């Protein structure tokens, strides 16, 4: 029950991150929004692993933390070039 509510809150946070990706206004904002979206995905995976009783999803969380870090740093390098 509590886990279901947590999933709903995470879904709202994912929608907020999507809105920030669309409106920007700078590329750094979009990188931040993608970062938050990844965090929401990882938290949802951890909660779903409990909810569904599927511990295999926790390995995905471990890999996702590393991939999310690399994605954020790579996107930040792209955003550093400025508009255009």
């Amino acid at each position, binding site marked *: 029950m*509590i*886990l279901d509510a*947590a999933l709903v*809150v*995470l879904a*709202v*946070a994912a929608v*907020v*991150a999507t*809105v*920030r990706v669309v409106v920007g206004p*700078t*590329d*750094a*904002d979009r*990188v*931040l*929004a993608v*970062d*938050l979206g990844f*965090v*929401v995905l*990882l*938290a949802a995976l*951890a*909660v779903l*692993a*409990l909810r569904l009783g599927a*511990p295999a999803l*926790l*390995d995905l*969380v*471990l890999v996702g*933390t*590393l991939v999310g*870090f690399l994605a*954020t*740093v790579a996107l*930040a*390098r792209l*955003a*550093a*070039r*400025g*508009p255009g």
Partner: protein
Amino acid sequence: MTGATTAGALGVVGQLLVVLGVALIAVGALGLLRLPDAYLRANAVTKAAALGLVLVLLGTAVLAPGLDAVVVLLVATALQLFTVPVAGYAVGAAARRARAPMDPRTQREEGTDPTDDPEDPDGGRAVETRP
């Protein structure tokens, strides 16, 4: 304390950690939506990523059955704590290089930031190599 009450107390602690973490992520999302410039939004997002996700993962580690899951979650927690500050710094530096505008209420000391120079097209990146 019997085994059943210990398990019940652990369940409460785990659920409390998960709820606190999700609440922190929600606050981070609120900050991403409402704060006025990219630097302040970076503040909100990195706090959500570091503290919120770490609390969710620790709560999951308390609730999860089996030692394997706990070890995987603790490794993921440690990695998250080490990588979030680096990623946050990278995004902040990128915003500065790309000259993302600051909120007009930001108080800064003039002349202390090499990226302030309007003559310098690459935003202070090559400041040491200039004559």
